[in-house]
């Protein structure tokens, strides 16, 4: 379907597609097998200005919107979710600075982020704080002109590879959710090290790692926004980034659909291509319909967010929820359409099925997305009576 993309949007989509086809597809199986961080691809992505898309021009970016950014995410996801997770997590980690950073912080970090010179990671999750972000135990204590960080973050995408980390830590445990604050921590700060590197079911090219803070001292000016605003920063960041996860879902689903439809046309059984069986056609018809519905929702919400809507929690949760559930279903069905071949490593869909699962879990599980939508509905109905 034609979404009437403007010229800039077409340029970005076409270039991201070319990078996906020429630089990602040929190596994705190997990156998956080895669990290797895709540095070469990240450099290509950076050199092509993909990391500058939604950074304002005054900080070395292209000054475009979140919609332009997710078009790139979608295309990269069509080829490999491990790569697109690395790319999208970079943007996730950037949002706290973009949305709440001081002029000085923006000047200091955004140009290097836009050029891809330094990668970024976002660190909220801990052993005790998954869906329940209020379980954060990492502390940041103000001592003179420095904050002293102690604690361990887990499952942080780009951990170890990124050079800039946006970290949520408790500045006042007694104040609960109001006691959290957001900070920038740079790699190589004394007291900041990396722990366990996870071995995963999918998105194996992406790095998922522990961050360990032991009396890690950072300058006071690394506080993002004000003390106590940590969870607001985190929630607004996730509101912004969720359409990106939705776009990942659309991309991986499209990749799986393309591979399985092509196979169904070429594979013969009972003297005819398997695509001629109505049972197979119906599976493909459902897949194609659901992908288009997901894409329409993700694009609409992304444009809505860029349009300056104030509260986008419900809509962005809907886009993430729907598109990633579609991704899971479509990738499973793509394996089914391809039969035994779909289950084999010679074909890309088994990887896509493994990869797709993460989309229903990270940046808020799909149960949590439903909670977010539900809470908005309660608020809306309360207003109506």
């Amino acid at each position, binding site marked *: 379907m034609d979404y009437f993309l403007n*010229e800039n949007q077409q*340029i*970005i989509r076409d*270039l991201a597609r070319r990078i996906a086809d020429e630089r990602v597809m040929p190596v994705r199986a190997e990156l998956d097998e080895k669990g290797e961080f895709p540095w070469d691809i990240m450099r*290509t992505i950076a050199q*092509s*200005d*993909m990391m500058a898309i939604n950074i304002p021009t005054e900080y070395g970016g292209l000054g475009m919107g979140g919609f332009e950014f997710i078009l790139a995410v979608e295309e990269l996801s069509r080829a490999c979710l491990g790569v697109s997770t690395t790319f999208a997590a970079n943007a996730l980690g950037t949002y706290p600075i973009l949305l709440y950073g001081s002029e000085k912080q923006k000047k200091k970090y955004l140009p290097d982020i836009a050029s891809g010179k330094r990668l970024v990671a976002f660190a909220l999750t801990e052993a005790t704080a998954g869906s329940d972000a209020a379980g954060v135990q990492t502390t940041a204590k103000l001592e003179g002109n420095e904050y002293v960080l102690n604690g361990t973050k887990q499952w942080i995408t780009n951990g170890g590879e990124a050079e800039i980390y946006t970290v949520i830590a408790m500045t006042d445990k007694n104040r609960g959710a109001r006691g959290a604050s957001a900070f920038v921590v740079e790699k190589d700060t004394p007291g900041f090290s990396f722990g366990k590197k996870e071995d995963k079911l999918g998105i194996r090219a992406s790095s998922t790692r522990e961050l360990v803070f032991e009396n890690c001292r950072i300058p006071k000016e690394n506080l993002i926004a004000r003390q106590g605003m940590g969870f607001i920063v985190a929630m607004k960041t996730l509101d912004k980034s969720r359409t990106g996860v939705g776009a990942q879902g659309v991309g991986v689903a499209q990749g799986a659909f393309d591979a399985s439809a092509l196979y169904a046309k070429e594979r013969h059984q009972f003297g005819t291509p398997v695509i001629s069986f109505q049972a197979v056609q119906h599976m493909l018809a459902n897949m194609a319909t659901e992908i288009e519905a997901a894409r329409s929702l993700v694009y609409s919400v992304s444009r809505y967010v860029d349009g300056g809507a104030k509260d986008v929690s419900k809509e962005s949760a809907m886009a993430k929820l729907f598109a990633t559930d579609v991704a899971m279903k479509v990738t499973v069905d793509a394996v089914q359409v391809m039969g035994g071949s779909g289950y084999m490593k010679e074909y890309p869909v088994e990887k896509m099925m493994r990869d797709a699962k993460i989309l229903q879990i990270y940046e808020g599980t799909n149960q949590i997305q439903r909670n977010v939508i539900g809470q908005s509905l309660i608020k809306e109905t309360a207003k109506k009576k």
Partner: protein
Amino acid sequence: MKIVVCIKQVPDTAEIKINPETNTLMREGVPSIINPFDLHALEAAVRLKEQRTVRVTVLTMGPPQAEGALREAISLGADDAVLLSDRAFAGSDTWATSYTLAKAISTIGADIVLCGKQAIDGDTAQVGPETAEFLDIPHISYVRKIESVEDTMIKVQRLMDEGYDVVQSSLPVLLTVVKELNIPRMPSIRGILQSKKCEIRTLGKDDINADENDLGLKGSPTQVKNIFAPESTAEKKMIEGTAEEKVESLLGELKKIKCL
């Protein structure tokens, strides 16, 4: 420092068919690309920009539609582009092509001229070295690595059948490059935006101080009588059997045709 990169627009040979009757390329409807070797030359120039102040100009001689190749080169990091286009250039052989390019390069000015090793359609590999001769500057062919560039000196590795030579030259110099030199980059979003709006300078015969008798068909000493793929006439025979049997029958065959 000024670098001129000579690029040629060629048909995408992956897509091309050959007319079986005339043995000529069927160019109609075939997409055009930048000659692949020239992309390596351009990449080398753009990488030099990262080390020192360099202005990279891409130059092509061709019909007006060769502008597409120049715009693509801009998206890959070239600073500006010159199209050499004039009816008077039509029918140029390698001699006339090189003469015309040299005249244009003199007009533009260059410390380093970069060319591909050869064009994948014409395949002569003559234009680079001939252009250097017309410019009366040294050339180094088959460059696989640029070791260092200084204000008046360049040091490169030249690919040889076995190993490589390290060659040093004064500037200005012309290099022809091989694929081993680098991996060409992808375009950038900024580059693409720039390529859509940038102006392409067109130079014709009156702009380059050339002698009209040396241009185009008039200036081309080569005369094409016929183009054909040499027919394979030799008979083939596969020899089967164990190693001893094969040697035995090979010796027999060679004696039969009086090679032994």
